[in-house]
């Protein structure tokens, strides 16, 4: 694991020196700052930001992660000629990408909210700290999940163009088509009590889970009537929180583990 640490540190230094992490952080900073400044209400800004986080963050993570591993091909081959375990190399590369992305997101979104909550005159307009925590947590988890997917895809597909295509398809599936599926099921089986199946389906998709966790923090449960009550009750319990946390955890671990399996057997 020491080797993994070394590779991680090296990657981290490279990331800090290059401009892309700064750009990424700058984008989130600009978005959050702009929404807070011109949107007025910070709860509303957080909801708008939620849309960006749910749409862009997985897309950037998965596309950027895929190209990252493809571009690191020479570096990987060079290191594999040395006495370096593949597991350490994979872990180091993954951490070297994911940690700067997470940090960029947390700093980019967190700083404007924190400064605005200090400078805002009315205490009621300040965003609920727990809602911001959930939003940041959701973003961090989504980053980890989609970079893990990216590494799995890049390890699986030899062809770069194919890999990018698959990455896009995964994003489309989880980000858009999955919700279309939920809607189709709700529509088709509307004669049945659907709260529990819909709940299960939402927990099974990390983007939906993140969205619902943040939404419940903004009192939107009241809008949702009976369904909202079921959701709020479920996520209010320790069991519900544990289940959603383990779902997110599984979504990180499974693609990561599969990626390692493929990476170890891969013929470079």
């Amino acid at each position, binding site marked *: 694991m020491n080797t993994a640490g070394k590779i991680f540190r090296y990657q981290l230094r490279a990331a800090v020196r290059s401009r892309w992490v700064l750009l990424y952080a700058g984008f989130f900073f600009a978005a959050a700052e702009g929404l807070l400044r011109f949107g007025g209400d910070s709860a509303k800004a957080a909801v708008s930001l939620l849309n960006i986080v749910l749409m862009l963050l997985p897309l950037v993570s998965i596309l950027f992660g895929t190209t990252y591993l493809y571009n690191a091909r020479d570096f990987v081959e060079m290191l594999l000629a040395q006495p370096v375990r593949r597991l350490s190399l994979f872990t180091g590369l993954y951490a070297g990408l994911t940690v700067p992305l997470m940090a960029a997101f947390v700093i980019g979104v967190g700083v404007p909210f924190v400064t605005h909550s200090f400078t805002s005159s009315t205490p009621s307009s300040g965003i609920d700290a727990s809602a911001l925590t959930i939003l940041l947590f959701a973003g961090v988890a989504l980053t980890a999940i989609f970079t893990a997917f990216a590494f799995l895809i890049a390890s699986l597909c030899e062809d770069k163009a194919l890999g990018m295509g698959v990455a896009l398809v995964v994003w489309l599936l989880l980000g858009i088509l999955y919700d279309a599926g939920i809607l189709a099921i709700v*529509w088709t089986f509307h004669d049945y009590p659907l709260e529990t199946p819909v709940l299960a389906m939402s927990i099974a998709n990390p983007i939906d889970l993140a969205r619902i966790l943040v939404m419940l923090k903004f009192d939107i449960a009241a*809008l949702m009537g009976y369904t*909202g009550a079921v959701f709020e009750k479920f996520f209010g319990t320790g069991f519900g929180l544990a289940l959603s946390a383990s779902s997110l955890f599984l979504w990180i671990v499974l693609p990561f583990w599969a990626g390692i399996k493929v990476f170890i057997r891969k013929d470079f």
Partner: protein
Amino acid sequence: MTLLQTIILPIVASLFLLSQLTAKTFDVYPSGGALARVVALAHAGDTLLLHEGVYRESGIVVDKPLSLQGQRSGGAVVLDAENKGVSILFIRANNVSICGLTFKNVAVAYTTDNAAIRADNVRNCVIENNTLDNTFFGIYLAKSSFCRIANNVLTAHGSHESSSGNGVHLWRCDSITIHHNTVNGHRDGIYFEFVHTAVITQNLSTGNLRYGLHFMFSDSCVYEQNTFRRNGAGVAVMYTHNVHMVNNRFEDNWGAAAYGALFKDIDDSEVRGNVFVNNTIGLYAEGCNRSIIEQNEFLHNGYAVKIMANSMSNIFTHNTFEGNSFDVSTNSLQNYNTFRGNYWSRYQGYDLNHDGVGDVPFRPVRLFSLIVEQQAPALVLMHSLFVELLDIAERALPSLTPETLVDNEPLLKPYRKPFSHSSLSRK
């Protein structure tokens, strides 16, 4: 106590005996049953000046035109029922006025509607500047008319609807004025049944367990500059014609069954200049016909307006819709209401000739709200990218949303009233 009684009562009695033909003023001091006795002794038209202290009495029947006044200079004049017995004051005569008193601790009862003040079958009563605390029902008028209820502060601390009473409760009354009262913590803040031509102005109804305002079968009443805030289920009004609701505020009624204002079978009414802010559902209309909803502001509600298909011929004009999750929601593809000249913050059209009216019609019903109306569990998809895409597609090529529910003259800026009355309503 007995000492006081023996001293004061003779004084009072002698005053009474010496009284001239004209109306007299009696000074009343607290002692066991003193108030009831003086009320019994007094003549029509007399004034009872109650001095500071606690009167531990209830069930006092005022059966002649008297004026009961709390002494202004001293401390509180408290009528404390000590959670025993029945209502504190029964008004059974015309022209009674009750001013400047504090009523406390009326017993909760499940078979009788105990209240601080109960008026039955009277005219011209005046109930002003009183403070009511923990009084089950507050001010209860039945079959009465031409009364004035003003500047009272009513507070209750109930936790269950079944064991709480209403603040101002009117049954079969007409021509009542209810002005500048504050009602808090009751079951319903203001409750009317079969009340006609009442005027309700500048009241503040907050934190009531069920409704801030609740009326049925109460035609031709006027509601102006009232504030209904954070009530359990908001405001619900039903089965009434000719309601005038002007410049009221409906605020912070947030919950699965809370409404800024729920209108059921409200016909030929006027809803003008009201502000609906932070409600789950701002205005819910079911079976409402021929009403005019104009110059209202709907801000930051879950649903701004939810209008059911059995509502017809209503006109929505010059309203402002801003920051609502859903601007208008309905349960049908048919629409028999008119939306014209409103401001919609979601509007994205343009105005080539700069007349302040957008050139592109606006369709306030999102496809998603239509889906949700039919399949409630679909609401979990709110803020989902897929749903946003659906809405964009529907807006580009409307095919599923109600064809006639469209604002052909959407305003580019919120309608500005000539003079803002809403600033006058109580904060």
